[in-house]
């Protein structure tokens, strides 16, 4: 679309800008302020420069949390994206079944995050949970408070349960926008199912998939409530992710300087990934418009 150059558009932006600035810029400046100071009490503070950043970057516990975070984010993306596409392809297209399936699938998305943790806690406990008891009956000593592998598997399963619907719904609505004529043409060409998927459905899904991957990546990177309720970050620190490390440091131990520096590093990592994705979206849109124009 050809946009008109008009700086009066700023007036439309202004109310939004004031609100977001109030809740984004002021707090962020506070964080920056803390990150370069050593605060003892309200009146005593020293300028420390980049010291906190160096301390945080060399902290082995945080490095481990960062690695776990990346491992977690990429694992769930690798599971949820193909599964979501698969579910979207299986979902009925019309009739009451379509509505019913839609409502059921959307359900996990609207449950408060700590309740998701509680649901899975109740579901997987060895004494009262259906899954916990079930697996023990099968002869495996399943225990998420003792065994890190079990805790990891459960958290990943929980995230798949919680967030695959988002990918599935995005893909479903992407699929619904493909005109029937495309399928008819494929039928005339006697295209195989795989060819239909690869050359008709998948290209149409790229846009929604970029959105889905973007949303999923950033939310998995900020995950807090679910593992906190389910495992409390344990056993040991095997499921402690970045948000939880940060909250413990900032609220629990009141280490203002280090936690502020950590916040900024954390934010910058997400920002970097965000920038990569943003460029990817913009480029894919540019490709589409040039194709349309040609």
């Amino acid at each position: 679309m050809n946009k008109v150059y008009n700086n009066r558009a700023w007036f439309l932006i202004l109310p939004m800008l004031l609100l977001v600035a109030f809740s984004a810029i002021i707090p962020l400046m506070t964080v920056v302020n803390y990150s370069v100071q050593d605060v003892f009490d309200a009146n005593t503070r020293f300028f420390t420069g980049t010291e906190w950043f160096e301390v945080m970057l060399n902290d082995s516990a945080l490095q481990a949390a960062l690695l776990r975070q990346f491992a977690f984010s990429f694992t769930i993306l690798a599971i949820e994206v193909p599964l979501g596409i698969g579910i979207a392809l299986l979902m009925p297209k019309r009739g009451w079944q379509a509505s019913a399936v839609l409502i059921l699938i959307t359900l996990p998305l609207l449950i408060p995050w700590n309740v998701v943790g509680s649901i899975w806690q109740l579901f997987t406990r060895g004494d009262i949970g259906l899954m916990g008891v079930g697996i023990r009956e099968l002869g495996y000593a399943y225990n998420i408070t003792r065994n890190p592998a079990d805790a990891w598997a459960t958290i990943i399963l929980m995230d798949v349960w919680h967030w695959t619907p988002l990918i599935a719904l995005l893909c479903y609505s992407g699929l619904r926008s493909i005109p029937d004529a495309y399928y008819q043409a494929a039928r005339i060409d006697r295209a195989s199912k795989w060819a239909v998927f690869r050359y008709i459905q998948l290209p149409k899904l790229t846009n929604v998939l970029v959105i889905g991957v973007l949303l999923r990546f950033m939310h998995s990177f900020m995950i807090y409530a679910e593992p906190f309720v389910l495992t409390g970050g344990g056993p040991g620190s095997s499921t402690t992710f970045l948000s939880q490390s940060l909250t413990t440091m900032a609220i629990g131990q009141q280490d203002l300087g280090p936690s502020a520096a950590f916040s900024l590093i954390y934010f910058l990592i997400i920002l970097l990934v965000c920038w990569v994705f943003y460029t990817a979206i913009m480029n894919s849109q540019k490709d589409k418009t040039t194709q349309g124009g040609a």
Partner: protein
Amino acid sequence: MTSSVPTTPESVRQQAAEVAARRRKRTRSTTTRWRRRTLLGLYLVFVILPIYWLLNLSFQTNSEILGSFSFWPQNFTIANYARIFTDSNWYMGYVNSLAYVLMNMLISISVALPAAYAFSRFRFIGDKHLFFWLLTNLMAPPAVFLLPYFQLYYSVGLFDTHIAVALAHCLFNIPLAIWILEGFMSSVPKEVDETAYIDGYSFPRFFVTIFLPMIRSGIGVTLFFLFMFSWVELLLSRTLTATNAQPIASIMTRTSTASGIDWGTLAAAGVLTIIPGVVVVYFVRNHIAKGFALGRT
């Protein structure tokens, strides 16, 4: 009629579609159809089972939960729900949560609509940078802002009020709303605006009477997302409230006491947090299919 030679392109297309539908019905054998249904059914069972278990436990007494293992409540009881509905500490949690979620939806949508229009229709100084900055707020982990928020809202005297949580959730909800709405608005041709201006509509009148109805499914989807992300958020809402505006999510932590966890009440409270979500999904179910792609297909 079907045997006659079709004359118009429409009738040719219609006949072709009928034939294709008949052939599809024949070729897609019943085994494939059943395989698809079974796979989808397995996934749905996976989705429902944890929720069913929560429901099951919520109708049991604590002694039954801990004493015996059963697939459905043996001694059906609604005592857990009764406890929540009779204790104002409990049910006020739901009122508080709904109050700040609705406030946030109202604030976010009303400032996001004009802003999204500006982004979709105009170029102006710094527009790309501003949009990118907005998206970065969407990515900001709430944990980063925890402490500064607490201090900020405490110093302006908003701590432990609904509006504090509503404003705090604007951090990620306004950028999200703008991002979604911009997609929907860009799919409305610009000629609509131009025609309206030629017809003598002023901008506010055009915006409210013509433009908004055209993107109403987009607005519905946006409200759905605003509800969703404000309703499910725990970290900020818990930090910014103490007693008067405490959300249900943080009241639920009260079920763990010195004598152990009150599983029945925890399960019942959990079930009740799912219900607003079900109501919202039911209302937007017909828009989900189209709207979830956020106008970007």
